[in-house]
């Protein structure tokens, strides 16, 4: 079998939001939040913005499939896909709806343009701010316990047992260390494939996932410490479930159901 080698000018075209990821995050931020900038701010970054527009149009012409969207709209789609969407499963319960998370990403991009801080750090700080809110944490935990992949209810569990378990999880979540551990659990169990896909894509190091590494720095912890906390938390969670419901394992029972 003979392989045909593509000529350099015959580059495989991808979707516009993936193609525009070839730009720097700074340029993407400038494009995405240009309508949000005030007149003074827009004037100050005018040259940078013009260069970003030119670069974006060049990238779209060369690498992207046909699209009706302008370069700024494509940049906003990029942030929706690679910053808001992956984090939806992680911190979605902390937001009222998906649009709110998308706007948080745009606010982070706007702050990044003005402060010069990486938009990922800005977004992580905003997500951490949400997680630290105790009221939202109590709201979010109810969504987390509804997920069967994280922990499932045995068939014999009644309303009282579920309520008791929810209170227990509330207590666990009330500690600062458990929240990122729970989020990391969520990330590993729900986003394993997506993490691998993103690592292979052109947007490596540009996506906005709430990573353990980034989260550990925000908490001023070492990543290994956070990983150990995650392991301990997982063990504790399983032990709590067994103690509360007096069960050995739930896997086979769930399969039977």
């Amino acid at each position, binding site marked *: 079998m003979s392989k045909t080698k593509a000529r350099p000018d015959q580059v495989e075209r991808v979707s516009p*939001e993936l193609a525009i990821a070839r730009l*720097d995050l*700074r340029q993407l931020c400038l494009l995405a*939040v240009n309508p*949000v900038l*005030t007149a003074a*701010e827009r004037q*100050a*970054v005018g040259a940078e913005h013009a260069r970003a527009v030119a670069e974006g149009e060049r990238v779209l012409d060369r690498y992207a499939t046909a699209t009706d*969207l302008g370069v*700024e709209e*494509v940049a*906003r*789609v990029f942030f*929706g*896909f690679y910053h*808001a*969407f992956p984090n*939806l499963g992680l911190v*979605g319960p902390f937001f009222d709806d*998906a*649009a709110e998370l998308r*706007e948080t990403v745009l*606010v982070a991009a*706007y*702050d*990044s343009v003005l*402060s*010069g*801080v*990486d938009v990922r*750090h*800005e977004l*992580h*700080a*905003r997500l*951490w701010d949400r997680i*630290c*809110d*105790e009221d939202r944490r109590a709201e979010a935990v109810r*969504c987390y316990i*509804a*997920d069967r*992949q994280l922990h499932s*209810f045995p068939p014999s569990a009644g*309303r*009282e047992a*579920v309520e008791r378990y929810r209170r227990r999880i509330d207590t666990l979540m009330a*500690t*600062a*260390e*458990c929240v990122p551990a729970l989020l990391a659990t969520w990330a590993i169990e*729900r986003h394993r494939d997506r993490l691998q896909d993103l690592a292979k894509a052109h947007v490596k*190091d*540009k996506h906005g996932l709430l990573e353990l590494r980034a989260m550990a*720095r925000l908490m*001023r912890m070492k990543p290994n410490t956070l990983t150990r*906390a995650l392991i*301990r938390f997982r063990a*504790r969670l399983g032990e709590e479930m067994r103690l509360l419901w007096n069960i050995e394992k739930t896997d086979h029972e769930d399969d039977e159901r």
Partner: protein
Amino acid sequence: MTAHDRTANEPGTAHLRVCPRPDDADVAAAVVADPHLDRATAARLRDTSRRTRPRIERYLLAAGHLSATGSASDGGRPGGGRRRSTVVPLAPAGRATPPVADEGPDVVDQRRDLTRRDQVILALVEQIDELHRRRVDSPSARERQIAAKALGEALYRIVAGYQEDYEPPHRAVLALRRADRALGRACERLAARGPRRQALVRWWARVGQWVRLLLAVASLVLLWHQVLVAAAVTVGARALLSAGLYSPAPPPSRRQQVLGYDPGWVVVFYTHAGDAAILTGLGVGLHMAGHTVWGIATAFAGLFGVIAAMLRALSGQHGFRLERCWFDRVAMTVVLPTATIGAVLAPPEGHGMVAGVPLAGGAGLVAAFIGVCEVGRAFYYALVRRRLFRRAAEAQGVMSDAIVAHTADGIVVNLRRDGTRPELLPLDPAPPLQAVGDDSVLDPERGPGSR
């Protein structure tokens, strides 16, 4: 119906808000659709940024992404943002200012200052470790004493301000303990009745342990020489004095519980050594009456009783927090005079046999049974403490709010934060750690028969 929907419909979860899932196509569409931004949305985003910026900047500063001078410290990542020095002119005047005046102080954010909280706990644990080191290793006796006081004070404050997590005992243990407490209340009511001269009670509290030991040794000598009547009088006088002049001891203070050391162990030793002496005398009497086996068993029962009592006292020194037991004291106070008087009235070589067991041997059986109970009690609480140790170690690893204080006496306190409270130890090095109180509470005068 998806698995998530099924879970949401289960009992107890039906009312839960169904969270957005990234697998659902409609959620994905909601995230990436409509990339247009109208003016109202843009104004709202600007307003959100302006309101929340001071808080976000604090997080970025804590994480090291933003330096205190306002420049971004990106670490040189490829594709990262530019230095703030190039974008400083962009920031409007209001950006770097604190929140507007009508918002008031951000109390909620102060509560969220988890980093500071962790630092406080870490500093506290380090100071406690240092106090332990000085208390044990310092060449200066004065420094050892002050460190012990300061440590006791710090741990006392911890216990006073936090909830302690204890494992509830087994139901049968609870029932036995309840009965024992009822017996103790009855004894204390009896001790409070009747005309008693306080001077005599104070004298007995001071020298009672020696008097009881002397009476016990005298009983041993008298029993050895078969002077049974005098021995019965001596043993009876010992029991009557102990019961009549008993004064309720104050309950152990919190500080004493925390420090773990109980100076009352000397009284415990003298009391049980006296009991053992009387039992040995009874054993000698049984041997002389021809019941050598019962004599040896009775003497060894006394020795076993001393060992069991000291094992229990040792457990108490190691923070097992064994509650005071009343059954053993009451039983021994009744049994020993009964056995001695029984030996006078019904000698074992005559009619002093009940179902093949001499009366003095019965006292040995009771002493052995009490010793077995003491050993079992100590082991039961050792198992409970081991479980508590495990839970405390687990809490120490998982919960950042938990303080697990290990004292040199083996106490482990698994604590949970319980409301607002002052700082336990001064974190600044300038003011020295002050020990409050004195040692008087550590050495309460205990009444006779308190163990």
